[in-house]
């Protein structure tokens, strides 16, 4: 089960489905979850959770040599009226409630941050304007902790924007009260040198809906670990992701949806395009349906479009089912390439080369972008995709 697969370009896999007595998702990590960095050995790169990651490019986040230097990132939170924004110490009870660090860098971030930011939307408050959190890298190293809490039946959209250059390790907690609805758009629009490693923990309350849109364009290394658990039945999680991996970039998205209570839903769709030498995208999609989670309905999918030679995709969907009493469970992964024959076919119909590429890439992402449901974000993403393409086509 811990056996991962490298899916060659042009192939399709349905991944692995296992019915297990106990979770291997948990046991294949090198150490149990902990808030203390000392509980994790320094990774050497052969561990299951690190084997795709270029440790030498993490700028010391994984081995304790990275030290916060005060000019890491500038965080600016713009929140509509009624929302509370606080800076709190690590003794605050809300920190770590959504999840515990599962690897050394997440634990390092938890052990090293100075003040955590807590954004609270009171119960039954329905925001009409998004909360905007701008994280701008100033060239240094930083450790962060962000909590976003929605009270019962609150509704909010949060846009987190990462720009500039930084070495950043962080944990982000999403706490959804019963019946709350939270949409988070988390954009990694870093400069080329940035290194960003983060664990996102969502705890979805009873009958609550969590929608996450992770968008990764920039950075030298971006490794994100979005995780979802449910605090009660009736919860729903939609995890959408879009990445555009350019030459030399390493973009890794490792997801876990832990169906730990009955009658919850999850839907995971991640799509990425790659172009240029040594562009490397990694997608790990773990879905665990625990024995108690009867009535679960889950689907996860990863699609990759390889635009040029020299790019590499590792896509590993993994579904573990401990109960057969479920509504549905499925997963798929496919990696295809935009090849010369497609280009020839479109050009033979009079379509110029750059337009042919744009047509294919836009088409590839369109279905996903339309599901975001926020027009200004959708427009921005399409514009950004075009920009990435222009940069490549020249």
């Amino acid at each position, binding site marked *: 089960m811990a056996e991962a697969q490298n899916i060659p370009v042009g192939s399709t896999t349905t991944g692995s489905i296992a019915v297990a007595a106990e979770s291997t998702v948990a046991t294949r990590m090198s150490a149990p979850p902990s808030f203390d960095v000392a509980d994790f050995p320094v990774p050497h790169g052969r561990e299951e959770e690190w084997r795709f990651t270029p440790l030498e490019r993490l700028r010391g986040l994984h081995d304790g040599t990275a030290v916060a230097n005060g000019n890491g990132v500038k965080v600016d939170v713009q929140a509509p009226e009624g929302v509370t924004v606080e800076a709190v110490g690590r003794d605050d009870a809300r920190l770590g409630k959504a999840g515990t660090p599962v690897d050394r860098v997440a634990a390092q971030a938890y052990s090293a941050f100075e003040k955590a930011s807590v954004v609270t939307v009171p119960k039954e408050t329905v925001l009409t304007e998004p909360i905007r959190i701008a994280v701008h890298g100033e060239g240094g190293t930083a450790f962060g902790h962000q909590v976003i809490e929605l009270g019962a039946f609150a509704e909010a959209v949060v846009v987190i924007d990462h720009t500039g250059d930084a070495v950043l390790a962080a944990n982000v907690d999403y706490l959804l009260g019963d019946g709350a609805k939270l949409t988070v758009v988390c954009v990694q629009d870093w400069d080329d040198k940035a290194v960003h490693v983060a664990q996102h923990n969502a705890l979805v309350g009873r009958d609550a809906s969590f929608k996450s849109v992770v968008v990764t364009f920039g950075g030298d290394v971006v490794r994100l670990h979005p995780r979802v658990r449910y605090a009660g039945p009736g919860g729903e999680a939609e995890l959408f992701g879009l990445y555009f991996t350019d030459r030399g970039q390493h973009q890794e998205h490792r997801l876990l949806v832990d169906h730990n209570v009955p009658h919850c839903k999850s839907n995971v769709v991640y799509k990425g395009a790659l172009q240029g030498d040594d562009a490397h995208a990694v997608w790990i999609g773990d879905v665990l349906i625990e024995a108690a989670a009867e009535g679960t309905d889950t689907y996860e999918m990863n699609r990759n479009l390889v635009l040029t030679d020299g790019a590499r995709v590792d896509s590993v969907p993994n579904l573990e089912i401990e109960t057969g009493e479920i509504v549905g469970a499925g997963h798929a992964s496919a990696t295809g390439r935009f090849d010369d024959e497609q280009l020839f*076919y*479109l050009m033979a119909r009079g379509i110029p080369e750059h337009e042919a590429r744009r047509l294919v890439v836009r*088409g590839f992402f369109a279905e996903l972008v339309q599901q975001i449901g926020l027009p200004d974000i959708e427009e921005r993403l399409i514009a950004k995709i075009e920009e990435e393409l222009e940069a490549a086509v020249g």
Partner: protein
Amino acid sequence: MATLEIRDLHVTVEVENGTKEILKGVDLTVKQGETHAIMGPNGSGKSTLAYSLAGHPKYTITGGTVTLDGEDVLEMSVDERARAGLFLAMQYPVEVPGVSVSNFLRTSATAIRGEAPKLRTWVKEVKEAMERLNIDPSFAERNVNEGFSGGEKKRHEILQLELLKPKIAVLDETDSGLDVDALRVVSEGVNRVRETGEVGTLLITHYTRILRYIKPDHVHVFSGGRIVESGGAELADKLEEEGYEAYTKGGASA
């Protein structure tokens, strides 16, 4: 009147153990309104001729000229050739994931016509063209050639032929892999375009079967990388009876 002139065309392709010459001096003139059938055995270079005219990067032109109304086709990029009025209906149309047929057709028509067709007339134009080819309307929302049957792919090629209205249409084995019903529908589509008198057609085929539906003005026998005999429609009847044997032997000794 549009004229495609091919003069002494030589084409090579890279193979495992070096470079291989496939076309060894092709001469052919196709005028608007004419239909030429190029017939020949497998491996004679028919498809290489088709792809070379369209500008496929796999093939290298080592000699000769191709002009369309005096313009040097070989100097043009693939998309420029299409915009100049050259159309290739492919034997193996390519799947383009994520691009719907309707989006593809409109983008293509916009490129060829030099301006976006007016939406209202365009929708009607596509709908009617699809009806004539017995193409289900749902087809428009499917991705280009993705999951299409062999017959659907060929009908989709002819749909493009009807909409793009080229000066010269090269049909590369459009008949291969079609059952009789599909062959009839596809042939009717080609004939509708021919009847306008505005297209010169180069029909490349291995079989005489399609010539029962599409009557050529000229028939050329292709063997060993060049045209070895030309004649009228009666030449097809001769091939039907005698096959290519006489030519392949001749080609080997030539």
